[in-house]
């Protein structure tokens, strides 16, 4: 299974990074995703490190797509949203499967968007869609750059409509992205298209 985007672009995974204003942005985005989405959606949303996260519990009842907090060694499956747990980096290992890490903070954050994006770029190569939404941190810029260099598709939220534009501007400062879109149209990227026609066999992650 894979996700086919407009212009026939096939994607095996979607990664999303956001911080300030992220819950509201995802509230608009995630409930629009269909249960049978042809790709997994892996999300890093900066949160306090010392408290349990309620994200999966908040989003699950509002979404058609399955929403979970990622666990170490958990298989990464299409049709599922994985939130990085607080105080762990979320990486992708061969399988593909979730690999959590307790390594030092990146841009004062754990989980870090850069850590997820770089590891996903490594695992999925060009068959990856990276999305940066509203945020007040430079985390994610390097990661989105890694996705671009691996040939993946890059999208940022339109900075004018973002609650905090710093994260998006930092990403744009690193180089061009494929799409700068309002949230509503980012959602349409996923929903305007049907699942993979089956011609595209699932490709194992390159790790």
């Amino acid at each position: 299974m894979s996700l086919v985007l407009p212009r026939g672009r096939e994607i095996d995974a979607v990664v999303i990074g956001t911080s300030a204003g992220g819950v509201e942005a995802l509230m608009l985005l995630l409930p629009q995703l269909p249960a049978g989405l042809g790709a997994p959606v892996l999300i890093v949303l900066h949160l306090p490190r010392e408290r349990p996260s309620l994200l999966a519990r908040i989003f699950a009842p509002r979404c058609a797509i399955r929403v979970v907090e990622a666990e170490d060694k958990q298989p990464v499956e299409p049709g599922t949203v994985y939130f990085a747990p607080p105080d762990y980096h979320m990486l992708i290992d061969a399988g593909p499967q979730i690999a959590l890490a307790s390594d030092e903070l990146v841009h004062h954050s754990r989980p870090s968007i850069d850590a997820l994006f770089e590891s996903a770029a490594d695992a999925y190569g060009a068959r990856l869609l990276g999305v940066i939404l509203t945020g007040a941190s430079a985390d994610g810029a390097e990661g989105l750059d890694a996705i671009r260099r691996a040939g993946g598709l890059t999208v940022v939220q339109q900075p004018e409509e973002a609650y905090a534009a710093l994260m998006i501007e930092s990403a744009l400062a690193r180089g061009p992205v494929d799409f700068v879109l309002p949230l509503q149209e980012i959602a349409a990227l996923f929903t305007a298209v049907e699942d993979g026609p089956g011609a595209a066999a699932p490709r194992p992650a390159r790790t």
Partner: protein
Amino acid sequence: MIRPAPGDSEIELRLLIDAIYLKYHYDFREYAAASLKRRVKSAMLKFNCATLSQLQDRVLHDPAIFPALLDVLTVPVSEMFRDPGYFRSLRETVVPLLRTYPSLKVWVAGCSTGEEAWSIAILLREEGLLSRALIYATDINPQVLQKAEAGVYEADRIAGFTENHRRSGARSSLSDYYQAAYGLAVFDKALRRHLVFSDHSLATDSVFAEVQLVSCRNVLIYFNRALQDRAVGLFRDALCRKGFLGIGAKESLRFSACADAFTALVPDDRIFQKRDAA
């Protein structure tokens, strides 16, 4: 756009890891690739190497850099009473059962710079069990073991440790256990007498003692499934009948070959008990 052909970095990584194993006998071959790659990348920056092959060359011909490389590959990240809920559950659920043993042995596996081992020593002291307890704290990195053994931490970390300790259901003040001087907090030598720090690899060594409690948190996440199975198998074999195993907050035995050997005692805090027949 110039990129190395896919797979090159995988080949280089494997050669580097094999070189480390052959020359220094540290076995990273079964570590989870994604986090190992991140660490190796930061090692490239630290040692000014443009490629992993260059790093491999340095590792082979400049043994003086190996201790520093080992530090990067085994990034020590720990704090005292990390995840206070875990320690609270140890107190409330495990300690009452530990009281029934005339003497106690605890194994803190992958102890890094020792914060967890010292935390358990303080917890056992507060619960009146330390006098009959011995805590084995093991790690593969001799430099972090030295730090662990010293029990000296930067004073600016103490506020965080104190807050964690308080939330763990503390029966005393953390300040009872250290002396602060010159920006450092030096932990009590009386606790130290119950701690044994030792070199041990979950990848290559075997069981060394029978213990009632194994605490191994945020170590298994760095292993692939095969090595996780080996490590959890060691814990099973080291634990006494109905012994206890604590793992990291986001770690799971669900995907382990040894899952059947344990039942979840406090699922939310990842505390397990060895099954009778296991």
